[in-house]
């Protein structure tokens, strides 16, 4: 199942993405957008975010600098 989305993308960003497709780095623009979104979601997961903040608090409480 998929969802069709409509969005505005800055021209420069779109051009860069098109260049990547034209150079053969990725099969087409749909695949590029899906991959970009997947990577964004992977790297911004709540559990990771909160683990990093816990490490931050630990540094705040017990760090040396």
């Amino acid at each position, binding site marked *: 199942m998929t969802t069709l989305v409509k969005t505005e993308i800055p021209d420069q960003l779109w051009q860069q993405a098109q260049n990547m497709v034209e150079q053969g780095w990725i099969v087409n623009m749909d695949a590029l957008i899906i991959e*970009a979104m997947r990577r964004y979601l992977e790297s911004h997961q709540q559990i990771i975010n909160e683990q990093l*903040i816990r490490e931050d*608090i630990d540094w*705040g409480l017990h760090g040396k*600098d």
Partner: protein
Amino acid sequence: MEKTKTIVIADAGPIIHLDELNSLELISDFDIVIVPETVWHEVQHHRPQALLHTKVNLIRHRAEYFSPQVNALTPFYTLHAGEQEALHLCLEFKNSLFLTDDTAAKLAAKNLGVTAHGTLGVLVRAIRQQTRSKSEVLELLRAIPTQTSLHIRAAFLAEIISDVEKNAK
């Protein structure tokens, strides 16, 4: 309070969020606080008054060394221009501390062996550095949802506050 010798490379998030809490001076005990050129522009756009703070000497600096490691990690972590420049500077200034509130930027920093912390760490550190009392820091933590643009899950913030209440001396 003894001055630390750590060089700080600051991303826009902590500068903006600390300033929103009227607490930007909490990073003034670091000898050098570098703001990458791209980050400077971001802060100038979103919170220009932070750059005029009288008690914090923010040094505007453009990266001159561009690490292939950072370039390689950029698409993987979808790093913004400011985060990229900050990480380039972190590799240029060895043993520097990267201040960022962005999860992907923190993960990229870990990957590069760069120490990274964020706004909450700086706030809690103020108790250890004796620049703020425990009750003052707890008050700042409670003010995050209403006074800042830093997004944090309410229940998680409550956990952090409880942790600090229990463990801060």
